[in-house]
């Protein structure tokens, strides 16, 4: 194997490391994402409890309508804030600085064999194995969270579009059963289909990356083997 071949494999290896670091950054962000989601669910369940307690103790239909509308608006606004401003941004920003960590590898690779050895020696293989296992979890959770959030956003948008705009124009009055029982499952199913259609490339890329992360253990062994051969150990 020539030096050029080894350089090519190291560049490939750097891409693996970048993916692993990104996945780890996502795994680091998971507790924050969980806190945001749990806070939202706690608030969402608190709304009917507060409403019920106020309704039973106070009992005024006009005031209750105002409180109901206010609570619905606040929870919807908080939902949008949590999803868009907190969770999606956190996933997108996770690992943005990763590429910079390996910028000096280009210079070392240009130095030839001493640079290659310096690169390989700088890698902590034990730490890397732990990173791989953690990164896999981060990637799986990030893909699932991404699909769920995109489905929810697309579902709500489609619900508004179909059941509040398009259907009332053509069908009036809308059958109550359709609006109450089937509107949300239909919207979420369509939202899921739309998400898979629009984000299929991104999702399949993530799944491919997951497979690449799996194969990195073998890559590491191969590089170790080549390193030993280069050193004639």
């Amino acid at each position, binding site marked *: 194997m020539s030096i050029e071949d080894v350089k090519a494999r190291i560049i490939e290896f750097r891409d693996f490391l970048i993916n692993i670091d990104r996945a780890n950054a996502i795994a680091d962000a998971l*507790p*924050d994402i*969980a*806190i945001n989601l*749990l*806070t939202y*669910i*706690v608030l969402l*369940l*608190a709304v*009917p*409890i507060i*409403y*019920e*307690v106020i*309704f*039973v*103790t106070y*009992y005024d239909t006009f005031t209750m309508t105002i409180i109901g509308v206010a609570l619905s608006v606040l929870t919807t606004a908080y939902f949008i804030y949590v999803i868009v401003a907190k969770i999606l941004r956190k996933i997108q920003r996770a690992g943005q600085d990763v590429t910079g960590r390996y910028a000096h590898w280009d210079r070392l690779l240009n130095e030839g064999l001493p640079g290659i050895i310096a690169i390989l020696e700088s890698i902590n293989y034990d730490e890397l194995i732990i990173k791989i296992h953690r990164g896999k979890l981060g990637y799986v959770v990030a893909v699932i969270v991404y699909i769920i959030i995109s489905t929810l956003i697309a579902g709500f948008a489609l619900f508004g579009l179909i059941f509040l705009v398009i259907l009332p124009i053509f069908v009036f009055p809308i059958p109550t059963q359709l609006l109450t029982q089937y509107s949300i499952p239909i919207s979420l199913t369509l939202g899921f289909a739309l998400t898979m259609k629009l984000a299929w490339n991104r999702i399949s890329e993530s799944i491919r990356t997951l497979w690449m992360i799996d194969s990195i253990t073998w890559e590491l062994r191969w590089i170790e083997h080549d390193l030993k051969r280069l050193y004639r150990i």
Partner: protein
Amino acid sequence: MKVNVKINRGSLILILVIILCLEIIFLLINPPASHYIGELVNGSGTILINAPCGTIVRAYIELTNYGTTPAKIYLPNNTVVILGPGQSAQTSLLIMPKAYVLCSSAFSGSIVEIIEGNTTPPIMAINTATIRIVGDVFTYVNYWVIRL
């Protein structure tokens, strides 16, 4: 003096999960839905609204005189409402258990009972509101219960 309280993420997740579990238990015990009972009282009758220990009951009562003579409604606050034929009246009651009474006995009856006739059954609950009806009155009670 400034006190800084720092909660780590693990503890925060644990606290949120505990709150979530409590909320789920509360909603399972108290689904946000009302119950109703409707009955025609011929001649005379009594509406009993029981608030067993550890509950708060809100009852919305609608009374309509279906008879040909005026009907008398004796409300728990000692007021008397007289309904002419075809007339209707509404009232809303909040019944809370008395704080100084211990939850010593289990309540096995129903929260709202409409009893026809002059006989009034013994009061079973910790706190009970009684509405006495004289006349042919259709009684509709819509009630919400919160079990604490």
